[in-house]
């Protein structure tokens, strides 16, 4: 690989601590087992897996929300275990969660985007400029004066992304950020993350259990029982549907259809994994 990676995960393992009062009764379950992963600056990485596969746990190690039991996580060279560096690490690697309501604080949209900047004591002009830029990037400028509860789920998730963008991070982790949204908003948020990656060169790590969201990634890492079990381009990952099914992932109808057509001898390339690409290859 070229330059040193933005995020360097070296052989980490992690178990969630047993609930209080039950120590000894319950064996802690290993959520991550000896995981190695490097994420390059500007990459669009998808962490794919069913519930409980360890993908969220892994993502949360990337900005020091969780610290490994053994092994190291370096974010542009800074060790996440170094408490004096954790604030810097979290400014570089922002995270958005499943439920945007958990990270919306203020009573007006633009105040909410400004929150983390104000807490850090940045000058007013800088805050203004960054808040305006962040709202424009996610397309919520017209909603700036509204209270967050008047926004739809998709708009609130955009607001959460703007709040993270305002800190000018190098990487955004979307931890199942579309799971609570309706299908149309889900597509829109995924497209927005891609746009942010393409236009501004931000590194994106998208955590999901949906294959259709993985199709647009540059690299897909599939997790199962705390380990990385598959890794590669979406086209190579989607080539073995039986394996994906065994990993408890749902196969979208168009992918299933394309696979059956290929087997039946219809000329479809391995990279035809989106609805558009499949249509284009069937009728050139």
């Amino acid at each position, binding site marked *: 690989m070229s330059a040193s990676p933005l995020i360097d995960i070296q052989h980490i393992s992690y178990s969630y601590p047993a609930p209080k009062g039950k120590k000894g009764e319950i064996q802690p379950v290993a959520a991550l087992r000896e995981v190695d992963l490097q994420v390059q600056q500007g990459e669009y990485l998808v962490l794919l897996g069913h519930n*409980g596969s360890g993908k969220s746990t892994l993502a949360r190690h990337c900005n020091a929300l969780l610290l490994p039991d053994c092994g190291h996580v370096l974010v542009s060279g800074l060790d996440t275990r170094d408490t004096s560096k954790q604030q810097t690490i979290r400014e570089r690697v922002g995270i958005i969660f499943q439920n945007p309501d958990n990270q919306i604080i203020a009573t007006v949209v633009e105040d909410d985007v400004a929150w983390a900047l104000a807490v850090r004591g940045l000058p007013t002009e800088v805050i203004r400029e960054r808040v305006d830029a962040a709202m424009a990037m996610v397309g919520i400028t017209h909603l700036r004066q509204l209270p967050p509860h008047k926004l739809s789920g998709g708009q609130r998730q955009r607001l959460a992304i703007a709040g993270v963008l305002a800190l000018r991070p190098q990487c955004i982790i979307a931890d199942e950020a579309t799971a*609570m949204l*309706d299908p149309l908003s889900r597509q829109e948020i995924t497209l927005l993350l891609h746009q942010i990656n393409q236009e501004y060169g931000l590194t994106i790590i998208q955590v999901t259990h*949906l294959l259709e969201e993985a199709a647009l990634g540059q690299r897909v890492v599939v997790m199962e029982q705390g380990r990385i079990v598959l890794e590669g381009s979406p086209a190579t990952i989607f080539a073995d549907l039986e394996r994906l099914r065994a990993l*408890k992932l*749902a196969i979208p109808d168009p992918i299933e259809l394309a696979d059956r057509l290929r087997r039946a001898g219809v000329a479809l390339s391995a990279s035809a994994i989106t609805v558009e690409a*499949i249509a284009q290859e069937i009728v050139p």
Partner: protein
Amino acid sequence: MSDAIIVTQHLSHTYQSGPLQKAALIDVSLEIERGSCVAIIGFNGSGKTTLVQHFNGLLRPSEGTVLVDGVNVGSGNVDLRTLRQHVGMLFQFPEGQLFERTVFADVAFGPRRMKLSRREIRTRVLEALEAVGLPQHEYAWRSPFDLSGGQRRRVALAGVLAMRPSILVLDEPTVGLDASGREEFYSYLGHIRREQGVTIVLVSHDMTEVASLADQLFVMYEGRLVLEGTPRAVFAQGDRLRVWRLAPPPLSELLALLRQRGLTIPSDAFTVDEVFAVLQHSGQSGR
């Protein structure tokens, strides 16, 4: 006419929020057939939850009428207790309502309030647990909080089933579950439907998900019923669905693109099998 178990006629509902009034439902007339499975589909704020909350008297119509098995839910002297045993409702994120120490106690909560005999309660609880795939010998005495998200949701469903409702209303029953959790939930629901002949009303924003289960879809948008029909007929609307903030199912989207590119595909092609048959044929003849 057919045997309708739920009928709404020109149903409107207006919420009063402070000085403002918000029309959440506008002139909705529909019929749900006894023993069928229907899905109310719509974007956030389209009025789908408001609509189904009329079915067990949680809300009363501002205008129009709601008849549930012939009972006018809007009338002042309706017996809500009986109505709600008749119409079981599972809310969003129902696992948040579990509170007892064991799965058995939680499922038994409703039947106990019905003042049934111990034996009857026991029978009903065990049946309900069986129906949702949580056999008693394995699950009844565990704490509901030690179960997975999907299992907890099924415990909540069992709690409603133990009341033996004739209508089951489920509001966004699979939001937040992963693919296998969803599939499991729907397979148990299909099973319950076949075994017990209950009428099922699903509320969802994802029509792809309910397509295999529902006989009839009702599409809501901004408080109005804008479309009704079988999943096949509704999916055939293709891109028009986006106007109502609904995502066309991926397969319909593919078909729409293929048609745009000049391929003739019969309008009744709907499942992966059907489309495969069509494309395999046209693929061979094209080459």
